[in-house]
């Protein structure tokens, strides 16, 4: 008898088949439930492709913010991956979702952020944002954003310290190597406002060209608006993200802020500024589209996106914070179970709900 191919659990021997194989050897046949063919997609392939698209963003962050960018992103990723390894399912690292969380968290932190804090953020995001719910697929909130929300609450100063451009690319943009449990040294640090901060607190609007390519202050990965948009289009074409979500977020923000701008151009910034400043682009393309924490129904995706767009403008214009993308997405994450339930499509051959009520 020849050796079984692959695993043995589902293989049964089909006895001698005369003349079927050259040496009259026995063959082993698999049995399994239908369907017996499968599309080429797989969850690890989706996750690792998304991870691969983050590489250009990390490169852009390094270009604008120097070695500090790599240190912060590396620390956050290490925190996320290590936590998944220690407390997650066996082999869960292979699906790539922890790496995405870590890199995304790093990309929404400032360049001068201490590495130990980034590490804690990554660990918190995976531990309390994902594993506590039961691991991949079970969590309610985007783990990277939850990690950042935790850091915002724990280290409000460090996370809003936006270093100014330094003369040398090699210079660190802050006290990345601060000792664990120690606050970073900020005495000699030159800071600069983010575009949203400058607009909100000083009434200064940043040049659009700078916003598009990322020559502004802000979190590591959020500045290169055009690059993020291009990566988003790529992922949408590959169907690795639901295009409806970024489309509805961006359209809502553009419409809402455009309307306000028309009413009072001095008080309210224009739609292009709103679209390309702050974390809106990376939020709309990478955070809001997290499959686990966004609605499964196409109609639900529109509602979810519009909700995020409205909240972003509300917080930016009337809220106490200059930026509201993180809280807008987290709030709508919480709404997802309700959106899913309310937007179930009508089952084939069933009456519409309203008609049932009327009848």
């Amino acid at each position: 008898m020849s050796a079984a191919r692959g695993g043995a659990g589902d293989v049964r021997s089909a006895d001698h088949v005369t003349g079927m194989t050259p040496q009259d050897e026995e063959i082993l046949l698999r049995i399994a439930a239908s369907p017996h063919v499968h599309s080429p997609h797989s969850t690890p392939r989706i996750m690792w492709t998304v991870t691969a698209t983050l590489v250009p963003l990390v490169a852009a962050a390094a270009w604008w913010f120097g070695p500090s960018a790599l240190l912060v992103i590396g620390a956050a990723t290490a925190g996320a991956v290590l936590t998944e390894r220690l407390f997650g399912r066996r082999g869960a690292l292979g699906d790539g979702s922890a790496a995405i969380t870590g890199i995304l968290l790093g990309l929404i932190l400032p360049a001068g952020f201490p590495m130990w804090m980034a590490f804690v953020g990554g660990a918190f995001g995976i531990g309390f944002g994902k594993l506590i719910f039961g691991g991949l697929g079970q969590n309610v909130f985007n783990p990277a954003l939850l990690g950042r929300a935790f850091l915002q609450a724990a280290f409000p100063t460090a996370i809003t310290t936006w270093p100014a451009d330094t003369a040398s690319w090699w210079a660190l943009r802050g006290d990345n190597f601060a000792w664990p449990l120690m606050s970073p040294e900020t005495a000699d640090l030159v800071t600069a406002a983010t575009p949203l901060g400058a607009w909100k607190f000083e009434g200064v609007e940043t040049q659009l060209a700078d916003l598009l390519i990322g020559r502004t202050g802000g979190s590591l990965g959020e500045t290169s608006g055009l690059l993020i948009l291009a990566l988003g289009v790529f992922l949408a074409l590959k169907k690795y993200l639901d295009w409806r979500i970024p489309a509805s977020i961006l359209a809502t923000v553009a419409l809402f802020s455009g309307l306000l701008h028309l009413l009072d151009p001095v008080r309210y910034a224009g739609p292009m500024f709103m679209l390309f400043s702050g974390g809106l682009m990376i939020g709309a393309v990478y955070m809001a589209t997290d499959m686990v924490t966004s609605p499964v129904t196409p109609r639900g995706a529109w509602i979810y996106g519009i909700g995020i767009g409205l909240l972003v403008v509300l917080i930016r214009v009337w809220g106490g914070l200059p930026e509201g993308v993180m809280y807008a997405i987290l709030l709508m994450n919480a709404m997802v179970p309700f959106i899913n339930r309310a937007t179930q499509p009508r089952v084939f051959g069933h009456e519409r709900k309203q008609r049932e009520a009327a009848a």
Partner: protein
Amino acid sequence: MLSDLLRSDTFRHGVHPPERKSYTESVRIRRMPFPDEIVLPLRQHAGRPAIPLVRPGERVERADKVGEADGFISVPIHASAAGRVRDVTLWPHPDGSMAESVVIEVDRWSPQLPRPRIVAQWEGLEPEQVVREVQKAGVVGLGGAAFPTHVKLLPPKDTPVHTLIVNGAECEPYLTTDHRTMVEYPERVQFGIRIMMKALGVEKAIIGVEKNKPDAIETLRATLPSDLDVSVLPLTVKYPQGAEKMLIEVVTGREVPTGKLPMHVGVVVQNVGSIACIAEIFETGQPLIERVVTVTGPGVRRPSNLLVPVGTKLRDVLEFCEGLTDDASQIVFGGPMMGSATPDLDTPLIKGTTGVVVLTESEARPRQVHPCIHCGRCLESCPVFLNPSLLGSLAQAGRYGEMEESNLMDCMLCGSCSYVCPSHIPLSQMFALGKNMLRRQKAKENAA
């Protein structure tokens, strides 16, 4: 009419598995020689199994009845070759179970001619008589579900039928059974349509064929009868276009209400193979004792379309196709989307066997299951608009009652959700189990 202009030539959702029909789509149907032994399960159709009429040792001629229909939703079974009954015993069935079967040792020296018989003249028959002839011949749906054909020919008086839909979609990958039937026997198909239209009393018949069979569409169009309203409707290539409900929606624009039959929207759907089979009854008097089967896939040396005596064992069919390749790893009865895999080469091919697909490791290998990431691909594939993601999590928790509330019973187990799931969750397998559990529960409640 406006509604005609707006009408799409496909349904919404569905999936696009690779078609892989090129193995056999232009291969002529060959008649397979009689094997040494044939196995005729008494359950080859939906409904009650047939009752055996023969005993071990008895001599049967070709086309003799060996099993009698048990009631109206049942059909008789006929010997597909002359010989001696060896046994009536439990035998492996294509669905994976064991079924009571008549085993016949084929007489090698018999000319395999049927007994002299009277062929019914269809023109003079009342619809009820046509229905009786069709049942007598043991005809079932040859598209795979094997529902007794005559039952569909007798609509209740309160649901008038206006259109006959002929199903030539053949949306399962690999299979070319219906395709070759349409290309090689178009006159027989047209004759069968004529008889069915008379029996049903309908004015209109539409043949639905997926656009990946241009030669079938052309041949059927060239042979359309001039005195009847029969037309060919080319359909978009998409799985499961050949599912009855999907086909009806495309042709009529109407959805069959849940739990209702196609008659409810005034249509009857029949597979082209069944229609050709009905034509045969009124041409030669031959009951359903042989059928066209596609034997194909990367694991078969010589992919073929065969005219196979019902009851021929898988082993004989594969040997006739020059055997398996070295990397063959799975044998599927039916198409790869809904068919069942068998490990036993003694399993017979039955009336409902549309094809035998032999897959290799590259397609049939087991895949690692990951957690559901709620990507929504299954929702966008489900042709009946269920939420497989939700149903799957309920199934894992064994919450079958809640699955029923989420319309599990509307699932037709087409496998589209499992096909697209990137986490390789065996959704349709879980749904088949769920439906079975619910049915068993219902039966228990009724018994109590």
